[in-house]
């Protein structure tokens, strides 16, 4: 014998949203910010091998918060999509907006139709060139996509961190200052984050096709000095 109870769609959505938010809030946040000549992504991550920030393509990077296995699968799908698209057409045809849209569709589908919503938020960052703009696309757990103008914060504590970063920086600064502000916003006034617990990736033109660079602890310390 089974009983079916009526649950209103509003209630269903609320429950699912609450479930996803709770999952995401358990992890640490990520700040991504545009600086004068690039994009920096900063995560608080005690693991030195389970990355939250990764290279997707020549000028595109990925960042994810929440459940690692869920966003890592999205990261892999993103690399495959980008390499497959570049192989079929050309490297210049790989666009971050298209990828962000795919993520949004998938997260939206999982939110409404999946067994459970994905407990993740992802960011697709694109370093601009002559034909494309520098962009930060943030995709939330239910598939909402937003195009952030200067910086984006992912994770449970996003609103507070957003406020702190916005107060510290109101226009494009060099990398060292933007990185300092991002770390300060993540840490808040009452604590400091050890360099070994920071994961930092940048997108910047260095004369190579591939613009992504993972900064090691020494490089991060140097910038934060």
């Amino acid at each position, binding site marked *: 014998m089974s009983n079916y109870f009526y649950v209103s769609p509003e209630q269903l959505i609320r429950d699912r949203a609450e479930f996803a938010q709770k999952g995401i809030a358990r992890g640490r946040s990520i700040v991504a910010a545009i600086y004068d000549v690039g994009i920096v992504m900063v995560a608080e991550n005690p693991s030195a091998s389970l990355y939250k920030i990764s290279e997707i393509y020549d000028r595109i990077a990925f960042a994810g918060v929440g459940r690692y296995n869920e966003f890592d699968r999205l990261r892999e799908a993103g*690399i495959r999509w980008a390499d497959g698209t*570049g192989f079929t057409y050309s490297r210049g045809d790989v666009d971050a907006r298209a990828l962000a849209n795919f993520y949004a569709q998938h997260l939206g589908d999982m939110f409404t139709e999946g067994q459970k919503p994905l407990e993740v938020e992802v960011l697709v960052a694109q370093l601009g060139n002559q034909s494309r703009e520098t962009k930060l696309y943030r995709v939330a757990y239910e598939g909402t996509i937003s195009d952030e103008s200067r910086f984006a914060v992912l994770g449970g504590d996003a609103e507070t961190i957003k406020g702190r970063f916005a107060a510290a920086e109101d226009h494009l600064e060099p990398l060292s200052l933007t990185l300092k502000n991002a770390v300060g916003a993540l840490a808040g006034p009452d604590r400091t984050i050890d360099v070994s617990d920071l994961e930092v990736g940048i997108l910047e033109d260095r004369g190579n096709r591939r613009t992504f660079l993972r900064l090691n602890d020494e490089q991060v310390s140097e910038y934060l000095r």
Partner: protein
Amino acid sequence: MGLPLFSASEDPGPSFFHFAERTGLTTNALDHSMSSPHATTVIALRYDHGVVMVGDRQATGNYIASRDVRKIEPADRFTALAISGTAARGMEFIRMAQLSFEHYEKMTDSALSLEGKANYLSPIIQRNNLTTPLIVLPLLAGWDLQSATGRIFEYDGAGGCYERFDFATIGSGSPFAESTLRLGFSTDLDLEAALDLGALSIYEAGDNDPSTGGPDFVRNIYPMMVTISVNGFQELTADDVARRFAAINERRTQSGGVAGGSLR
């Protein structure tokens, strides 16, 4: 293309080739009647601090199809890939290899070892060569970061991969290039000697094999010369290459076209 998500049991892993197969990005022609341009002679030889590669620039069908083909390409910073055989398949092969190495690196956050790259190419060559007459035979050379040596890998038609500790040649002019290398090679060549010997071997191939392009002093097109060392893949400048081939040509003119003797 949609977002390529796979379940854990279906996942193609970090291999771009297997992913491309799965999603139909690659195709396999089965036309046995086609005649398509062939790319011709490339050599690789080891010197004391790396590998030198030299390749001619001509693609030949029933006539000369192109005079300025680049048959040696960096597969990544420390690896060079050269092709002989069907030009179209070779170019696709280089693209697939370059992308596969980069794809692996992005997926796993670590670079493939040189031996890993060499082995990875075997089944791709095997599949191509055993299913189509559009044969492609590559040559892989790289700086092995783990052992800090330059290494050369050659392939047979069925995809078998063999490491060569001296030198390797591919393409229609390889008998002539090979002979030159055999007579000139020693295990203690320095960079300059290796470059000169490599250039001479391609000169001989161009001189004897109708499908291999020698130095073209009229159009200023010269064979491609690269080094792979601790500094990665580096291509010699056009002026440097022109100078080396002009010197060989000068000696050959003095000897009245005779290849042997003191002017060699």
